[in-house]
């Protein structure tokens, strides 16, 4: 099962390497990883997407807790949550294709953020599934480049992962 794990981490050098190393050492996989400082510059917020059965996820969360720099860990996919990922896609856009790509981007509520006579760069935000679907929908349009941020997540309602 796919899980989205949120981690509040001391924003110190080496902390991220330790966390990533843990996944490699213990053979857990990382589908995506997204990390940046929070409003409090001493803390980083990290969102990690991984796969595993309940036992594996429980071990992952316990092992994360054990890292000295980890302040809090939460499997936000266990309850109602919001997931967003940012994608930038550069596609070839010539002649008729230009209209088609634009229409497709509109349907997915994407924005064209850079234009050349032969290319479009589209920005799209949504769940990882939605981004996958957009790539499918581009169909025969030649994709030149895809950049994805990995999912970020937050719990719905009043629940927070904070100090």
């Amino acid at each position: 099962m796919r899980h989205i794990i949120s981690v509040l981490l001391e924003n110190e050098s080496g902390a991220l390497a330790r966390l990533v190393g843990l996944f490699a050492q213990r053979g857990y996989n990382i589908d995506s990883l997204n990390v940046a400082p929070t409003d409090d510059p001493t803390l980083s917020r990290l969102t990690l997407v991984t796969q595993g059965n309940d036992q594996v996820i429980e071990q992952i969360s316990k092992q994360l807790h054990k890292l000295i720099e980890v302040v809090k860990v939460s499997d936000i996919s266990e309850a109602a949550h919001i997931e967003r990922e940012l994608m930038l896609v550069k596609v070839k856009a010539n002649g008729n294709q230009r209209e088609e790509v634009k229409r497709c981007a509109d349907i997915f509520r994407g924005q064209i953020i850079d234009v050349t006579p032969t290319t479009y760069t589209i920005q799209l935000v949504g769940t990882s599934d939605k981004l996958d679907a957009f790539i499918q929908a581009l169909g025969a349009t030649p994709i030149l480049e895809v950049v994805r941020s990995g999912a970020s997540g937050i719990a719905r309602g009043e629940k927070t992962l904070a100090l």
Partner: protein
Amino acid sequence: MTSQTKSVDTTKAPEMLSGAAMVIRALADEGVEYLYGYPGGAVLHIYDALFQQNKVKHVLVRHEQAATHMADAYARASGKAGVVLVTSGPGATNAVTGIATAYMDSIPMVVLTGQVMSHLIGDDAFQETDMLGISRPICKHNMSVRRPEDIPYLIKKAFHIAQTGRPGPVVLDIPKDMTMPNQKFAYHYPSEINLRSYQPKQQGHAGQIKKAVTALLAAKKPILYAGGGVIMGQAAEELTELAQLLNLPVTNTLMGLGAYPAGDKQFIGMLGMHGSYEANQTMHHADLILAVGARFDDRVTNNTKKFCPDATIIHIDIDPASISKTINAHIPIVGLVKPVLTEMLAVLKQKKKKLDTTALQSWWQQIAQWRAVHGGRYDSATPLLKPQYVIEQVSKITKGDAYVCSDVGQHQMFAAQYYQFNKPNRWINSGGLGTMGFGLPAAMGVKLNYPDADVVCVTGEGSIQMNIQELSTCKQYGLGVKIINLNNGYLGMVKQWQDMNYESRYASSYMDSLPDFVKLAEAYGHVGIRVTKPEELQPALERAFALKDQLVFLDIHVDPKEHVYPMQVPGGAMNEMFLSKTERT
């Protein structure tokens, strides 16, 4: 430095110290008596600061690995973190095996590694290694110094992390420019430290403890399974009280030997791969397992799918990640074993209930039958010296009261099986990593700190040669360790596996061209005694232990064909064992 200290009279004015002096001063303020290490370019400022004071004493080993094992063994015997100082590059990499050894057995240790100047880091400078990167997966935590004025705080933090929660080694990497003798900073050693991201639990959950007591009281076939957590958690007394209050059979893991006195009738021996027949049977058939500070290691459980089918499992451990990792716990209790056991005892005494006596009696009868099946027998009808017999005699002559520091191999298992450990912290071995070469430096670390105690190194002709150079350190510091070299002329444990699994094809398990260990010991200035016949053993042991302050190397030639039994059948349940070369369950 001392004169400087004297000249500062007001308590307010901060003392100004260089980074190097702060390293040593912080260790002194932490109460560190011995520092085990080896000098080199990156730590020369620190060594110079060490030279100019006399609170912290330095022990110069002959190889950095030995420094780590000395510090580690001191920690195992005392419960306090041992401290190591090595230089960058090769000094640091030589310490790696010792750090990993301590990590696998959850031993508190603080390792200070030199590093090249900050501005050279990343340039492949002379003797530069990324020690933070190398040590990351084999230590509890690591850090580097970025500002000299942070040194006291970082050293306090290193001790705090190493010694609390589930203990472990902490590495502090110190670039050379953090220790410049002419740059001085205000020194203040923090008395305590509070980390928002690290708040290890102490007490167990009261509700869980009550639940555990209820389950325990309802058991008909209980077993108490105690591990290294009881030793490091200093809870042997509470464990013993609990076991005796309820008349529970007790088994110890390899790491837990001494947690419950081996001479007591409730002790059924070590369990696991080379555990006693009765311990493995009792465990397998138990309806309730009370696991205390043990981690259901694969050398204990054998095939987890066949593990103890009928047991309700109560698991007490400081590390939540150890609970339900390999074996699912029905009643998990996270906390330090000492307060948890104390609380359990309080609840039990308040309830004034015992287990069902009839059920417990028939359980003990069953255990007695299992005991009669094997009972630690070995074939003694040969003219050759048996390694088991040697250990029994060492146990007798030291009255089960020596510190026994072991290397890794058959001799280690014989020592675990046949030495009667009646006290905690006396059995010192590399259980998790299985590091050959651990024994001698470990014995040195203990002897240095407990000069009046009998300290024995049980080893084999293979293992001893992995750190034999330390015989020189022993001479320098007058460490009267007794080395029991169970010389079978083979990498015996490897040979045993080759006998059992590879039709006795001894690929590189024969120890050819062995040195004359007696002459070797003498060359280093020690006493060497060779024992080749059973009747020579007793007088040799008597002589060795009478030579109180001298290192005696007993080169004891034992039966090269001997195997360690019982041995669990690979892939089987706890209770499937080979009992001798010709019998299995």
